């Protein structure tokens, strides 16, 4: 194997990893706090992608103006759109659905979110129809660069930066702020924190909105790269499951490591043994579950008898 191929695999893998991380981190945040494996997350991703692709198509694809202004505008659309979706969908799903299910079996909760996912997927179709949307302008504006003969869009590199930014902000928020400390207490023991006067209902709602925002952001930031069409959420959610399981459910560094492991091995498979592409991801997931079911980076659990 030559050096150039290795470099291509590395770059390709990191780009794919950052995409996976952005999608999976919201899932892991919600699982970490609420212990809910949230299938609706796939729909949050689609919502983010559709809203962004629609608005960029409306305002930016054919707009005139300097590259910098248009890019800033696109970024604003992506961010504001995701925050908006995080609030609306987050409140809707948490208050309207999950609130009633916290006392039920975890399988039932997963299935309920699966049902919510089916419903939201069709809501998307009702709003935006079945035609694909393209939000190519930001990608065009940023140009591309060549690495060993292969063309990479510069936009995809910014995704790597965004991933690290998100990871850092989450780490900081969790470990260095008052809200983070309260959150850790809730994660550690829900009932005792309630007894200590923490408003767990509020904490749950806020974390769910953050998780939803992250899911939507993943879709929104990814929208310019893909063709936004029905069915993108179904594919994403199962990949996000794999990443979260590999890293350890509920762990943010775990999601980062999981995304890098999956991203790099998929890139290696695509360039070396293309027929193994899908197989490799789930094989790693199975191996991790077999040898370290709690994941590579699971937070330490206090055992309750």
């Amino acid at each position: 194997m030559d050096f150039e191929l290795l470099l291509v695999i590395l770059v390709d893998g990191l780009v794919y990893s950052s995409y996976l991380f952005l999608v999976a981190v919201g899932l892991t945040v919600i699982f970490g706090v609420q212990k809910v494996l949230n299938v609706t997350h796939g729909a949050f991703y689609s919502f983010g992608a559709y809203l962004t692709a629609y608005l960029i198509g409306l305002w930016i694809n054919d707009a005139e103006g300097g590259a910098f202004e248009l890019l800033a505008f696109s970024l604003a659309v992506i961010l504001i759109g995701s925050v908006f979706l995080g609030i609306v969908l987050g409140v809707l799903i948490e208050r309207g659905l999950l609130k009633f299910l916290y006392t039920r079996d975890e399988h039932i909760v997963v299935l309920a979110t699966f049902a919510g996912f089916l419903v939201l997927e069709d809501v998307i179709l009702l709003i935006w129809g079945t035609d694909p949307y393209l939000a190519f302008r930001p990608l065009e504006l940023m140009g591309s660069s060549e690495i060993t003969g292969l063309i990479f869009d510069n936009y995809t590199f910014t995704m790597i930066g965004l991933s690290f930014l998100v990871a850092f902000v989450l780490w900081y928020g969790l470990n260095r702020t008052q809200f983070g400390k309260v959150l850790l207490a809730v994660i550690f023991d829900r009932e005792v924190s309630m007894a200590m006067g923490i408003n767990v209902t509020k904490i749950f709602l806020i974390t769910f909105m953050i998780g939803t925002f992250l899911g939507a952001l993943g879709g929104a930031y990814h929208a310019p790269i893909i063709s936004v069409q029905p069915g993108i959420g179904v594919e994403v959610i199962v990949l996000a499951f794999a990443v979260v399981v590999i890293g350890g459910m509920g762990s943010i560094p775990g999601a980062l490591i999981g995304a890098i492991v999956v991203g790099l091995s998929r890139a290696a498979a695509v360039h070396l043994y293309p027929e193994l592409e899908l197989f490799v991801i789930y094989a790693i997931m199975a191996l991790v579950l077999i040898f370290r079911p709690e994941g590579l980076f699971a937070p330490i659990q206090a055992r309750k008898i």
Partner: protein
Amino acid sequence: MTRLFDKTFWGLTIGLVALFALNFLLEEWMRSIGLQSLSRGCVAIGLLVLWRTGLVSFGHALFFGFGAYTVAMLQIIGVNDIILLLIGGCATAGLLALVLGFLLRQYRAIFFALLNMAFSMILYGVLAKVEALGSTDGIGINQVSFFGFVPSDDSYRPTLFIFAVIFAYIAAVGSHWYLKSTLGLMTMAVRENEIRVEYLGYSAEKAIHIKYVLSGVLAGMGGVIMALTIGHVDPDSMVYWTVSGDFVFITILAGTGNVGATFIGALVYELLRTYAFEFAPEIWQLILGGSLLLIIMFLPDGLWSIRSEWRNRRALAAAKSGDAPAGE
């Protein structure tokens, strides 16, 4: 023999006879719905068997797809009789479950569900790339013979229906007897308190392993019936994770109270899907998901619980009206 006075057994037998009679009256599209319900019903019984232990698999499309693809592979090497295909499909799915069972029997709760899903997605990843089996396009299934008998084109589907009904009947009665046996009842104890079961001298893991193989065989049987019904197998409609989700959906819809109810659940699911797709193609998933949510919220024990609910109410009403004169 208490078995002979078992209501579920007689209910299933009556169902068997009724379906034989109905076979002459059914239109072809109804028969198709019936066949698909029988197929998914078999898989859902497999999930019910696991559910009684508190285990839920989000990856039973693995065995379903394995059974279906076994039919395709057996046909490629020239085996074309329904009984051989059925035995083949059940045996390979069961063997796979036996092997994976050594691993999965150690897992509980969400890890069990997710490890199953991982294995089913591995199979999906493999099947989507194997050219010899048509990769993502899938592969066609030919018409089969029935114990050497080759029916005419007109009577092919009715014959297939009769065989599917018999297979499903055997699966249902067998599973029902298993669940009522000591071994079957013990696994409910495993759900309640696994450690205590171990202290009583039984191996919980072994009991779960047996259960897992049984559910694998049932899912394989469902796969065989589905492959023959549709006449085509492909990874997206046989092995993808959403297929596993649909099976769990049916199990919830029917409730885990009774084996026979599973077929009713599967039929309701099939009708819901067909009609939603027919009359509201834009929102059929919304209708499906919405009904699932309603069931989870308002009928947590599934359709079967309507029956016991109704019975309780009647008993209550009878008690009230009966008590009034006595109180005078």
